[in-house]
């Protein structure tokens, strides 16, 4: 094809695209075209639409940013010349004309901030041409606390505006209350994580110390090494900073954990690791693999008790517990698989545990990890567990290599 032909084709494609966009815009907003509804209904739709547009920014709470983004919508809702939002100390945003009033606003609403009652006042403007002569200020209250004010300006006194401003302010308050709710929910989740993440089983500490003690006389050098591993492991687990870590650090801590476990169970536990070096820098929630490994060890060893005097021996006829930990590179994600050949679990029971109905002691580690992964990465990234009674267990964790706000430290 010739060059001119290509040029024509490209032009045609652009024109089609433009036409498509226009058509899409027209059909996507049937409310704007005047085929349905009476004028009153139209006005209602318009108002509801404007209100719905103003709502999302306000859900972030009363900040300069959210005020700026919602003020224009609120002003068009009220139909005033100027609208001002303040918090308790300063003007957050001034939308519309007459911005010079902003300097006096805080003085004028002092009384309102203290009393929490609607106030109307004359603007006392020195500029004779200024159309803003009168204003109504309404408090924004959440839980009986005045967070700020909404002030609407008009050329003259207007009962309608006073009423409308009151209604709009109440609607804003609802949004702010929802924001408050959001915030407390996040706080709750964070607190939960903080509580859950430091849960190293006390049994593990007793058992490790007992196992180390058993080596103190027979093999003091090994006992010393194990104590150092124990110190390192607890330091990592109890560290107070940062919610995230890197896969390399997490695996290192798992290695220390396994060294301690093997001090106790010796030959009965065989561990295989397959780690793709590409995924070691991946950031992930702190201590989110260790509970899974702990779970695998527990299930793997379940039902068999080591002979007290001879911790390392494999009982006759019993296969050693095999645990495989592997981490692969999968494009923009890393995939970690933890597998054991232990007793497995009834899928139905597992489902109960993951729904949080499993009672206090069982599987709290799994549930906790699953919840944290979902919180950080979204519901697509929960644990995938394959298991059956007597069939071992295989847990797959997918970790995105990058997620905004997740930085391994």
């Amino acid at each position, binding site marked *: 094809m010739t*060059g001119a032909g290509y040029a024509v084709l490209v032009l045609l494609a652009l024109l089609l695209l433009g036409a498509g966009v226009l058509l899409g815009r027209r059909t996507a907003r049937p409310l704007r075209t005047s085929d349905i509804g009476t004028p009153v209904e139209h006005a209602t739709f318009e108002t509801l639409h404007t209100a719905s547009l103003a709502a999302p920014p306000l859900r972030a709470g009363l900040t300069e940013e959210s005020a700026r983004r919602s003020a224009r919508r609120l002003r068009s809702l009220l139909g005033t010349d100027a609208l001002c939002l303040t918090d308790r100390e300063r003007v957050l945003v001034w939308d519309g004309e007459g911005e010079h009033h902003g300097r006096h606003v805080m003085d004028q609403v002092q009384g309102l901030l203290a009393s929490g009652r609607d106030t109307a006042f004359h603007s006392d403007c020195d500029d004779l041409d200024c159309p803003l002569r009168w204003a109504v200020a309404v408090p924004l209250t959440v839980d009986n606390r005045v967070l700020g004010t909404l002030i609407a300006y008009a050329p003259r006194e207007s009962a309608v505006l006073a009423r409308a401003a009151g209604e709009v302010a109440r609607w804003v308050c609802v949004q702010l209350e929802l924001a408050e709710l959001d915030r407390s929910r996040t706080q709750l989740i964070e607190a939960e994580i903080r509580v859950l993440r430091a849960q190293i089983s006390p049994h593990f500490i007793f058992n490790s110390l007992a196992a180390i003690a058993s080596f103190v006389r027979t093999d003091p050098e090994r006992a010393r090494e194990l104590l150092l591993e124990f110190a390192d492991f607890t330091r990592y687990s109890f560290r107070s900073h940062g919610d995230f870590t890197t896969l390399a650090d997490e*695996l290192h801590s798992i*290695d220390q954990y396994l060294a301690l476990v093997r001090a106790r169970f010796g030959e009965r536990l065989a561990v295989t690791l397959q780690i793709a*070096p590409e995924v070691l820098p991946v950031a992930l929630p702190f201590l989110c693999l260790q509970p899974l490994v702990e779970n695998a060890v527990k299930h793997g060893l379940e039902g068999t008790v080591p002979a007290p005097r001879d911790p390392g021996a494999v009982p006759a006829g019993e296969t050693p517990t095999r645990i495989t930990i592997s981490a692969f*590179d999968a494009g*923009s994600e890393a995939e970690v698989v933890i597998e054991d050949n232990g007793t497995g679990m009834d899928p139905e029971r597992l489902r109960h545990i993951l729904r949080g109905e499993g009672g206090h002691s069982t599987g709290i580690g799994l549930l906790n990890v699953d919840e944290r992964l979902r919180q950080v990465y979204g519901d697509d990234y929960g644990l995938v567990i394959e298991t059956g009674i007597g069939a071992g267990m295989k847990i797959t964790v997918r970790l995105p290599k990058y997620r905004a706000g997740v930085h391994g430290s």
Partner: protein
Amino acid sequence: MSRTYAVAAVAAVVLATVLVGGFGLRISRTTSDFYVASRTVRPRLNAAAISGEYLSAASFLGIAGLVLVHGPDMLWYPVGYTAGYLVLLVFVAAPLRRSGAYTLPDFAEGRLESRQVRRLVSVFVVAAGWLYLVPQLQGAGLTLKILTGAPGWLGDVLVASVVVLAVAAGGMRSITFVQVFQYWLKLTALLVPAIFLALAWHDDGRPRVTFDEQLSVFRADHPLYATYGLIVATFLGTMGLPHVVVRFYTSPNGRDARRTTVAVLALIGVFYLLPPVYGALGRLYAPELIHGGDGDAAVLLLPGRLLDGLGGDLLGALIAGGAFAAFLSTASGLTMAVAGVITQDVLPSRGVRHFRLATLLAMCVPLACSLMVSRVPVADSVGMAFAVSASSFCPLLVLGIWWRRLTPPGAIAGLLLGGGSAFLSVAITVSGAVRPPGWPHALLAWPAVWSVPVGFLAMVLVSLATPGRIPSGTNAAMTRFHLPEALTSGRHR
């Protein structure tokens, strides 16, 4: 006979790639070797992997062809391809690694906290990746045609399907080892024949290579402008190449990212000494390529011209294998990167199956283009991908890392004006709408000279005009980018 050897060599390379990719990790390790298993990728290994991925058909075939046809001016190509890493080293490597971003869209989102910028960057990553993939496929087609007389499309389809199958089946799990293997293979495949060819030339009485004849129709107009265009594009474009950026994620920290880049400079520096040798020898022994022939074929044809019998055949096969390693490694790296971006930002839901679908998508478009679009010399069309990258990602990365006042609207304006105009000019050039010679053609074929400043200016001016939109996390992000990890993490070891 030489045909059999060449086919065997190509088959061996394809097989080895798939095997190393699929089974490189299958060697089980017990806990006693845990430290071996968990050791991060060392800078040198990572550097070899980056070099393996980076040295594409353009480097392997294209440079020699351009030197042959257009003379020593074309040495700016290898210089530019290498020097790009110097810029990367100085301005970008360590902060980019510390940002924790895996792809460029990740970086954009992390720095500017805007989904819109992220989506726009994704579009550009896919576009640049596709632009870069087309010449790889075309190079494969050409190679197979010269070696076996197969129809031109066969090589394109072969490389495309091998890459899609390997990537989609998860066969590239140990991609680092694959790429390291490919680097050394490529170096060997050029170095060993070069030694033998040089010896043969010596025995031939060392005839002098002359470049007196000025034949260049393509760039006879405005050669100086074209050279500057090339320099700007390659110096500034390397940092934004999608398959290069993702490899820096493998470094454990910013310091290692810098060391990796230094090692990359050494490794590709050594490699780029070789293609000009082929170009010069080609001038002597394959002179028919200058007149209307395909310069890209020079490297493949030379062993047969200088050496008779089995030796020539074997060396030819080695080069063919190396060339396929070049297509496969770059194409698989690009496909992985593009497919990753498509899964994350284009397809609605996530999962392994979507990654496979994305792989197919990532390859289909460039395959279709490579079959339809007229052939431009490989090194030139790669240069266009560099130009797009230089005018869109370079301003984003450099300003994003070094300038606090960058805002999302500024970034969008810069990407659209700089990158968009570069992409449009490249598209017009490739479609052949503007015929040489003349200024319009020169301006459109080497857009970087004007599009990079346009991109930077647009980003700076619009950012300055929207001071209210500076992302709230800017200071935190800057701290993370520029402080060594040991300070920010507060870790005591």
